[in-house]
C-alpha cells in the first residue's frame, strides 16, 4: 500500500520550472530520503506534499486520498523544520499543544497526547520552559514532538539536523531512526548530507534540477549508481572517473588497456566512449590486490591522513586518481605503490547519456 503518491507534479515560480512531471510512490511505513545539492527542488517537493506551496499541475495522494487542494492541517502530516520554528512566546507544552488547540480537541485528550509525546522524546522536565531556554538538540526534539502529538500518518523532515553541531547531529540521527522503528510511520526526510541519507533511509531519491535521478535503496545507490551524477554525488571522497573507450571487454584510457570481463554489463552494447568510475575505497593495495585483474604502479603525489584511514592522491592513466589506504599505512609523497582494481566493483557510464552501462 502506498502512503504518499505523487503524480505528474509540476511546480513553476513564474518562468522557473522547479519541479517537472515528477512521479513518486512512497510505501506505508517507509523512510524515504530526498537527497540533493541546494536548489535541486527537494525542499520544494516537501513543501508541496505539506501543502505549503500550491502546485502548478499534477496530483498528490496521501493514504489514497487526493489532498492536492487541502490545507496543510487537513492532510495528516506533521512537519519538522531546519530552524526548529518553535513559537518563542509559548512554553514547550504550549508549542506541543498548539495544533491540538487549533483543532479544538478536548483538554483531557490534549494533556494525554502531550504527556505521551514528552515521554517518547524524553522532554518531560522541559515542558514548562520557553524555547529560548533550550539547547539546539532539545529544541529539535520539541519540534519533532509537535508533529508527534498530532498523530499523523506522514512525518516530513526539512533538513532537521543541519543547524546542530556534528556530535549532536549524530546522536539525533540515531534517535530519529529509533523513533521510526518504534512508530512505523511514513517519514519523508530532506537533506543534503549523504551520511544522514545513507544511515536513515529505506530508499533514497537523489534529485537534480527538479527531477529524481535515482530512487533506490542506499546499498543499490552506493554499489550500482544509475548514472554519473549519482555516482559522483554519493561517496566521500567521491568516485574517480577515467575517460576512455570500451571495446569488447577492454577499456582503453590514455594508453592503458584494462580488462573488464568481470564487469556485469546490463546491455549487450558495451562499445564506444565511456567513463569508468572507481571508488577510492575499492582500490586495493598490498596482498589484496594480487588477485585483481587490473594492476598498476602509481607514484604518490599527496597524502591526507585522516586517522581511521589515509587518502592518497596520485596519477593513473594520466588522470588524477585518489585511493584510500589503511590509517596505519606509512606512505609519503614520491613513493611508488602497486594498486589493484576490481572491475566488478567499478561502474561504467556512457559518455553521452551518462547512464550506467
Amino acid at each position, binding site marked *: 500500500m502506498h502512503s504518499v503518491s505523487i503524480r505528474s507534479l509540476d511546480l513553476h515560480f513564474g518562468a522557473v520550472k522547479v519541479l517537472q512531471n515528477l512521479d513518486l510512490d512512497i510505501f506505508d511505513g517507509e523512510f524515504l530520503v530526498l537527497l540533493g545539492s541546494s536548489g535541486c527542488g527537494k525542499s520544494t517537493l516537501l513543501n508541496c506534499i505539506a*501543502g505549503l506551496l500550491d502546485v502548478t499541475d499534477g496530483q498528490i495522494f496521501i493514504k489514497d486520498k487526493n489532498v492536492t487542494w487541502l490545507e496543510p492541517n487537513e492532510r495528516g502530516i506533521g512537519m519538522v*523544520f531546519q530552524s526548529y*520554528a518553535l*513559537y*518563542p512566546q509559548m512554553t514547550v507544552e504550549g508549542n506541543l499543544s*498548539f495544533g491540538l488547540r*487549533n483543532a479544538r480537541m478536548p483538554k483531557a485528550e490534549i494533556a494525554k497526547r502531550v504527556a505521551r509525546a514528552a515521554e517518547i522524546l524524553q522532554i518531560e522536565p522541559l515542558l514548562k520552559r520557553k524555547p529560548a531556554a533550550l539547547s539546539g538538540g532539545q529544541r529539535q526534539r520539541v519540534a519533532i514532538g*509537535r508533529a508527534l502529538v498530532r498523530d499523523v500518518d506522514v512525518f516530513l523532515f526539512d533538513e532537521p539536523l543541519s543547524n546542530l553541531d556534528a556530535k549532536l547531529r549524530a546522536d539525533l540521527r540515531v534517535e530519529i531512526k529509533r523513533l521510526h522503528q518504534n512508530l512505523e510511520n511514513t517519514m519523508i526526510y530532506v537533506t543534503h548530507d549523504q551520511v544522514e541519507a545513507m544511515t536513515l533511509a529505506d530508499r533514497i531519491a537523489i534529485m537534480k534540477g527538479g527531477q529524481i535521478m535515482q530512487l533506490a535503496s542506499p546499498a543499490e545507490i552506493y554499489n550500482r549508481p544509475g548514472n554519473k551524477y549519482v555516482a559522483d554525488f554519493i561517496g566521500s571522497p567521491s568516485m574517480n572517473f577515467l575517460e576512455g573507450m570500451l571495446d569488447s571487454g577492454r577499456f582503453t584510457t590514455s594508453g592503458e588497456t584494462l580488462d573488464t570481463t568481470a564487469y556485469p554489463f546490463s546491455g549487450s552494447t558495451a562499445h564506444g566512449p565511456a567513463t569508468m568510475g572507481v571508488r577510492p575505497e575499492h582500490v586495493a593495495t598490498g596482498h589484496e590486490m594480487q588477485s585483481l585483474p587490473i594492476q598498476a604502479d602509481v607514484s604518490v603525489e599527496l597524502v591526507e591522513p585522516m586517522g581511521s584511514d589515509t587518502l592518497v592522491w596520485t596519477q593513473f592513466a594520466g588522470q588524477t586518481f585518489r585511493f584510500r589506504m589503511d590509517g596505519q599505512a606509512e606512505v609519503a609523497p614520491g613513493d611508488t605503490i602497486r594498486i589493484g582494481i576490481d572491475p566488478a566493483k567499478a561502474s561504467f557510464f556512457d559518455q553521452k547519456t551518462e547512464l550506467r552501462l
Partner: protein
Amino acid sequence: MADVTASTNGNGIPATGLVEGPRGAKPKRTFSRGNIFLYGTLIVVAVYYALPLWVMVVTSLKGMPEIRMGNIFAPPVEITFQPWVKAWAEACTGINCDGLSRGFWNSVRILVPSVVLSIAVASVNGYALSNWKFKGSEVFFTILMLGAFIPYQVMIYPIVILLREMGLYGTLWGLVLVHTIFGMPILTLLFRNYFTSIPMDLFKAARVDGAGFWGIYFRVMVPMALPIFVVAMILQVTGIWNDFLFGVIYTKPEIYPMTVQLNNIVNSVQGVKEYNVNMAATLLTGLVPLTIYFVSGKLFVRGIAAGAVKG
C-alpha cells in the same frame, strides 16, 4: 598573575614567566587629544541645542516685569508658576478663555483612535504582505510606498472634497481617518519589514498546526512583534500630536487640536505680548512627545531610524 622573572634566554623572550615591558591591555589616556576634541565638540553641540530650551523654561517662570529687563539667559529672580496656570486654564483664543486645556483634551481624543486604528490596520497589512503574498501584492505594496513620497500639500484639497462627500468634514472622525491614511505607507513598511524578518518556517509550522489567517496573526505574529508595535506607537503618537496642518484644515474651532490652539494663543495679541505665557503654553504642548522621548529611550531611536526610510 605570573611574576616578572629575570631569566631570559638571550633574545629577550623569557624561557618561562614574564619580563618587564608591555603586558596585558594597552592603557588608555583619559585626556588624549582625540578625547578632548570629541567631548569638546559634543559639549558645544549639546549646549547649542539645549540653550533655547533653557531660555524657554526660565522665561516661563518669570513675571512680565522681569522679562522686560531683557536678561533672557538669566535664571528667574522670583519664580512664579502663574504663566503656566494661565497657559493651561485662562489664556484666550477668540472668545474662549479656558486656555490650552480644551486643546489638550481634543488632541487626546484625536490621538487615541488615530494611533489605535492606524497601527491595527497597518500591522495586518504588513503581515498579509509579508506572509500571505497574493497575485499583485508587490504592485500593491509599491503603490502604497509611492504614497509616502507624495507631498501632503498636493492631497489637501482632494481630501477636503472626499471628506465633505462622506459627511466627515470638520468632524473628529474625519481627522482620525486622515491620520490613519497618511500613517499607512510608513507603518505598513515598518510592519512588513519586521514580519519578513521573522523566519518563514514559523509561519509554515503554524499553518501545519492548523492556524488560519487571524489565528497566526494574533497567536504567533503579534506576540513576537511587540517591539515593533512600540516603535510604531511612538512614531504615530509624536507624529499625530505634533500635527498642525491637518488639524487646522480638517477640523472646526471647537475640536482644534492643541497645536492649533497654541498657535492661536501665541498669535492673538491683546495689548501686551505675554512671552512667559507663550513659553509655558509651548512647553505644555511639547510635553507629550517629550515624555515619550524620555520614557522610550532606545526604542525611540529605532523608531526614528525606521522612519528615516521615508527619505
